[in-house]
């Protein structure tokens, strides 16, 4: 499974790409591979306040709806509009075209509690 070196990871299989006080959030290659066949994405609303460890979005495969937990506290700045018509981008490009939402980080020190790529690789074995 692909685990890029420039991201931080939540134990619940989300990633965040941090740039200053903003971050882009998605689900990992491992997560999309486990879910398979993503057919619908319910993103958060722009302006919504999200909380680390709390559900922020829903990704639906053919079989089940899965909560996606925000890796950090903050405010949603933008959501990936492409996923409305092409939810399978989460499968085909989990770290690039399949990103879920962009957020302003209200508590950047939280990021230290997330996993490093190596720790996440160990977690998923």
């Amino acid at each position: 499974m692909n685990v890029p070196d420039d991201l931080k990871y939540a134990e619940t299989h989300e990633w965040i790409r941090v740039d200053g006080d903003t971050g882009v959030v998605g689900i990992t290659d491992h997560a999309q591979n486990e879910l398979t066949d993503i057919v619908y994405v319910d993103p958060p609303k722009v302006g919504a306040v999200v909380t680390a460890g709390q559900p922020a979005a829903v990704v639906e495969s053919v079989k089940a709806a899965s909560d996606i937990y925000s890796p950090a506290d903050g405010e949603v700045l933008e959501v990936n509009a492409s996923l409305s018509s092409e939810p399978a981008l989460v499968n085909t490009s989990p770290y690039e075209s399949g990103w879920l939402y962009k957020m302003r980080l209200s508590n950047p020190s939280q990021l230290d509690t997330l996993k490093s790529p190596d720790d996440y690789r160990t977690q998923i074995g």
Partner: protein
Amino acid sequence: MTSQPRRTSLFDQQKAAGARCINFGGWEMPVQFTSIIEEHQAVRTTCGVFDISHMGEVFVSGPRAFDWLQRMMANDLAKCPADGAQYTFLLNERGGVIDDLIVYRLAEDNFLLLVNAAKIEEDVAWLEQHVTDGVTIDNRSDTMSALAVQGPQAPRVFREVFQCEMPARNSFVALEKCRGAVIAAGTGYTGETGFELFFANSLSGDLWAAILKAGAKPCGLGARDTLRLEMCYPLNGSDLSPDRTPLEAGLGMFVALHKTDFIGRDALAAQKAAGLTFKLVALRMTEKAPPPRAHYPVLVEGRVVGETTSGALSPTLGEGIAMAYLPPDLAQHGQTVQIEIRGRYFAAVVEKKPFYHPSSARPA
């Protein structure tokens, strides 16, 4: 306390084929191999194979077997010829569904009942509770396995494996293969043409290998569920329950009210005379929406009128489909409803069943 899930005789072969497993009715079963959508399309366009060994095989035989089954089951076994199969119900006294099953008439006085995995113990207990002299019940679920091969290319797969023609729909043949006895039946749960095999556990590996070699794609319960839902075939425990009757489920054609006596008959006759208060309808989403799933509220003009019993994104239609019990006045084709999904409301319409008409299916 949860007990360890059981595994079928094909568990190792399926793991080797890439199965991802879930707990289904106490069994560790493949939900998918590569992708539910791919497996669904394989069955609709080529051929797929499902391990259905978790289902129960219960043999009923003896000089009184026919008469006794006529009293235990809702459908009319007199209409099932020897070497024929019939869809039927075990009902409780209220006409509610204990189980839906297929009866295979092996001989005049010998029957195989194919029952749902989660209901084996309950069904057998119910049968034994009512058994009479001249009837023998033999539950061979633990020593028998079963495979379902479904799709337009299933007849070719059958010829390659057995060197003879596939049995016609709702009939079966007894065959020898790999030095063992196999019952091969023209039945299935996908709407496509195809066959199901019932055999001793010891034959599992050889039959699985032969069917894969003939080109069938391994499929899991995920595709089995979307395939059956496109056909509006009910799933017991979801669309059927002890509190719902076959009449409410729209399956009256499998209930022989002309039979003078069977368990649940009086309740069904009374329900028919009084008129139904609920009907199981097919719902199709008419706007872009998350896939409907079981237990979502169904509303008309802001009022909750029922809930979905099954739901999925139809891989064939590319739209959300579901079933729900609604009052008869709201069960007309074309009735618009809303389905509540995570606090939002999405438009759907009552459709004629089924959602899909397979090109490979032959008339029953």
